């Protein structure tokens, strides 16, 4: 064993030039993958942390068609917006300036008051199902973010009878904070979809409603996808690095083939040849991985001075990537060696 390792060392000394190239290929691909991983996880953690700072009680609502929403805001006074009327476009609606609140009871909390509208207080009242599905029945005093404005939930409506088209339980009532103090009704037409309706059939706004937790889950999913993609990319790049290395080491056919011929003539069996090359390839891979890890650590030490979110060296990922690289390298190397070691001694020495 000591002697076989001696051969490996001797070989590395002797062929350091081509080997250097091969090792460099592995090191570069390893470092690239590792650093991209650090950057992606760093960003991920950064975003998660800042979202956690906001608290998990947030619900985000955004109109898909922001211009309409803006228009609505500006012209809120001209519309009577509610979820419980039959929607028909009427010219005179434009002139109705009457403040009218939906006649619903609240289970807990209170209904929107005229003062809310007058002073434009950021409060809202939510329907039963919104409370259940979005807030898990804990909606009171949580917040809802509608196109950037944060509304506090001050009341939860009692269940109301709805129709096929509308379900008042999927409703968020926001005071018309604008000119005339009209209540704006935001109707949620499903679990996540929030429909904001302006009657006249002119505007039929689809809104997205998403809780902070869901937003984070979505982002986590996205990051996972990116990381999975990264794993595939990394495998490919590691394989490319390994191919380059094997190219440099094993496919120096002319010199190695003759050596194998000599060894076989001396009586080295195929098994022993495989063993010898196993040591050799292992040594190269370990060397490359060692250097790769060192480079990563140095890069991270420097990188963390500039942007601290890069975070410390991810040992788990490093170990997984390292083992993967080693495994693939050994597999590829041994396949190649198996091919050569089967050749007949005379053919090898020709």
């Amino acid at each position: 064993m000591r002697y076989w390792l001696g051969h490996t060392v001797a070989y590395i000394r002797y062929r350091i030039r081509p080997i250097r190239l091969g090792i460099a290929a592995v090191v570069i691909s390893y470092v690239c993958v590792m650093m991209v991983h650090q950057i992606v996880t760093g960003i991920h953690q950064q975003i998660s942390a800042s979202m956690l700072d906001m608290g998990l009680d947030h619900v985000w609502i955004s109109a898909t068609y922001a211009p309409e929403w803006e228009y609505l805001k500006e012209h809120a006074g001209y519309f009577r917006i509610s979820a419980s009327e039959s929607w028909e476009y009427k010219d005179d609606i434009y002139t109705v300036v009457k403040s009218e609140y939906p006649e619903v009871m609240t289970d807990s909390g209170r209904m929107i008051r005229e003062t809310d509208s007058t002073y434009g207080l950021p409060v809202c009242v939510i329907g039963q199902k919104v409370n259940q599905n979005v807030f898990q029945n804990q909606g009171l005093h949580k917040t809802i973010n509608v196109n950037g404005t944060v509304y506090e939930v001050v009341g939860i409506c009692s269940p109301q009878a709805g129709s096929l088209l509308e379900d008042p339980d999927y409703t968020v009532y926001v005071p018309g904070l604008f000119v005339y103090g009209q209540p704006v009704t935001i109707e949620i037409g499903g679990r996540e979809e929030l429909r904001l309706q302006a009657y006249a059939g002119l505007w039929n706004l689809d809104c997205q409603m998403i809780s902070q937790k869901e937003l984070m889950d979505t982002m986590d999913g996205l990051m996972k996808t990116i990381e999975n993609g990264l794993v595939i990319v990394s495998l490919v790049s590691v394989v490319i690095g390994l191919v380059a290395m094997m190219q440099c080491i094993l496919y120096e056919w002319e010199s190695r083939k003759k050596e194998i011929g000599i060894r076989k003539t001396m009586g080295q069996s195929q098994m022993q040849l495989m063993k010898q090359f196993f040591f050799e390839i292992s040594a190269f891979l370990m060397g490359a991985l060692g250097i790769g890890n060192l480079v990563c650590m140095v890069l991270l030490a420097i990188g963390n001075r500039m942007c601290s979110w890069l975070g410390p060296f991810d040992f788990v990922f490093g170990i997984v990537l390292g083992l993967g690289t080693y495994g693939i390298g050994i597999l590829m190397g041994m396949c190649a060696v198996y091919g050569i070691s089967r050749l007949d001694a005379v053919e090898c020495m020709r």
Partner: protein
Amino acid sequence: MSCMNCSDSKMIVLEHVYQVYPMKDGPVHALQDVNVTIEKGDFVVIQGQSGSGKTTLLHILGLLKNPSEGTVRYEGQDCKGWDETTCAKYRNQTIGFVMQQDALIPYLTLEENIRVPQMIAGKIKEESIGKLLRFTQIEKQKNHLPNECSGGQRQRAVLARALVNTPQILLCDEPTASLDSANANRMVQLLRGLHRIGITIVLVTHDKRYAKAGNRLWYVHHGRVTECDIGSDIP
């Protein structure tokens, strides 16, 4: 001459050995109907023109190649059924090879090269290596890489390596081909010395001067082997 009847003195027997290489422009008959016997303690010199089949014959004698046809017996056993590992073990333990040209592993020093067969066998005997280095007079160069040594030194290292597992038979394929006459003489002297201590030797050489170096002389011509009288001239 050794006794032809006692079978245990027979080292290698070839019976009706043919070697054919099928080529695009017709088959090449490298060996044709070879029937020879090597006794223990023989020193066989093989001569013949280039391309006559000497190296092929040596490869078959050394279990590096199975003949296309015919039987090879090693110490009375038919080698036909032997698998790779058995052959490899036999080559390692019983046969020593001195190859035609530079057959050293380029990245190992002479000493490490000499040690390879022992490593393969799994037993390292340092003292035998020291002895061989002295015997072949390459002690000073033992830590040099092959390309830092002269041709004579390299060839002697190959000889030392062939001897390191104390083989019973030594197969030499033109060990003197790339050497000047002084070095070539030295090489043949070494072989003679080995013959004296009982090692069976087969020496392939072009050099007519060494035709009578051994106790037997074979002449190979177009793949056919004829035994010559040591006294007579080579055809």
